[in-house]
């Protein structure tokens, strides 16, 4: 499990989990889970198109992520955001299906695009992942305050000269960047669960933004590490473990938060009764 063959896997997966945890915090904060679902679908279509043309998969994937994010931003400003997002998913999945039917790719490659290929990542792929991951983190750190205020209350941000359309655009570009980084490793479907589950769990557990981001990253890392190990040992698909663990983390966090609240209330009551 820790052989040299697996080192790249651990490195790439760790990078992806870290950025998914951080960017996922803002995805959940903005209530933009649906967008985080749509952009990786664009990436899937882009990758399928690129392999059909015989060009770099990463290039096609990045271009389509960007295109998908910009389309959602552009249409969302003119109509209902959820409708624009949903239609992007549908169109992109349709395009992906068309490209795949034209190409002579093996089913395993398609499977990898959707569910990831955590096992057997090459050295050059790891380098790209780490560089893109670092750029994503740097972007989040730069935009931290405007993104935090605008995501929590766009009304207040607008009065500070932070136009919500511009912050939205920056956010969509960030999601496109993270998608480009992560989809080759964890796949278009799993990317989504890794961004939502840990961040949702963290926000239930902590009321401090900085703590919640750290928690979200920690949960994403644990999810991915456990999934790789479990997948390696059981030979079951890693997607099963990532999706299930992300969901479990969220449910466990909600239950824990509710239990803590109940305890706080009963302690308060005891205190009041003692006075």
């Amino acid at each position, binding site marked *: 499990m820790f052989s040299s063959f697996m080192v790249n896997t651990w490195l790439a997966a760790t990078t992806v989990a870290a950025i998914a945890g951080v960017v996922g915090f803002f995805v959940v904060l903005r209530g933009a889970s649906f967008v985080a679902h749509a952009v990786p679908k664009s990436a899937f279509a882009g990758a399928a198109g690129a392999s059909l043309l015989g060009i770099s998969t990463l290039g096609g994937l990045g271009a389509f992520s960007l295109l998908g994010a910009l389309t959602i931003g552009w249409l969302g400003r003119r109509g209902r955001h959820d409708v624009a997002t949903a239609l992007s998913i549908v169109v992109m999945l349709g395009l992906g299906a068309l490209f795949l039917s034209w190409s002579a790719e093996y089913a395993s490659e398609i499977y990898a695009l959707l569910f990831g290929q955590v096992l057997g990542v090459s050295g050059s792929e790891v380098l790209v992942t780490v560089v893109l991951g670092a750029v994503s983190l740097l972007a989040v750190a730069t935009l931290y*305050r405007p993104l935090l205020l605008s995501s929590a209350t766009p*009304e207040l941000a607008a009065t500070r000269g*932070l136009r919500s359309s511009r912050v939205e655009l920056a956010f969509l570009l960030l999601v496109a960047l993270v998608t480009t980084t992560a989809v080759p490793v964890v796949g278009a479907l799993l990317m989504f669960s890794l961004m939502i589950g840990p961040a949702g769990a963290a926000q*239930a557990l902590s*009321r401090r933004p900085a703590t*919640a981001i750290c928690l979200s990253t920690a949960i994403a890392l644990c999810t991915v590490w456990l999934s790789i190990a479990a997948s390696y040992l059981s030979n079951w698909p890693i997607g099963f473990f990532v999706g299930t663990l992300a969901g479990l983390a969220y449910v466990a966090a909600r239950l824990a938060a509710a239990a803590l609240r109940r305890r706080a209330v009963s302690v308060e009551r005891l205190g009041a009764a003692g006075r």
Partner: protein
Amino acid sequence: MARPGRRLLLADAVSTCPPGRHGEARAEVLALDGVDVWLSGRKVLSEVSFAIRAGEFTGVIGSNGAGKTTMFRVVLGLEAASSGQVLLDGESASHRSRRSIGYVPQKVVLEPDLPLRARDLVGLGLDAHKLGVPWPSRARRDAVDEMLAGVGATSLADARVGTLSGGELQRVLIAHALMSGPRLLILDEPLANLDIRSGQEIVELLAGLAHGHNVAVLMAAHDINPLLEVMDRVVYLAGGRAASGTVGEVVRPDVLSRLYGHPVSVLDVEGRILVIAGSNIQAVGTLEDDLGEHRH
């Protein structure tokens, strides 16, 4: 409460500007001059002109749809006036000068499980537009604590913003808006959805800011009565037009009838004002009795 070498917003305002109402020499903080606003082919505001000064509490009174929010959005630069101009400190409002306006919007929707404490939101009032990660510092924490204490929200500091009650949230939003040290604080219907007691507390807090700390407070409300005791000036909006002056100058049957384009009566019922349609109501001691000729 002031320690040297630290940025103290409320305290600074007190020390640099002696308290006192109706200082005639005070400069105009905000002035609107003949502002017209068209929104989707409809004239929402027409020839709106008024000025407010530092240390004044001004109520913007009008029913729903009278154009209160639109007027604020024009002042904030979120909506463009088709003619007329907005002056801040005597100069035409710019992107830069508008950033120094404190604003509390009417509708702030906050999810209950938002991972943001009241102190985080107040802190963002200081530097939300800046890039980079805010490093926790003693000065920043003290400034936030002091502001929370100033609005009477110290006990709320560590609560999630989404779990605050209406009155509590208003205090925190006011603290957020004050963090940048604005000379003009605009509030859009802060009393909406508040119970009578919380509403009165918010009015007292705002009056203290205006009269004690020299902030120009401009506050929208659909009911004039909660503001009567503290208001220095009223801007009455109806039918897209505005009349401004002291309460006595504006809240009169003749002025309001002209504004509404329909005869109205102004009743004074034990110190409370009622504005009612129709001119044939026998007024019980109208305000006109104790007022001279109005200027408009």
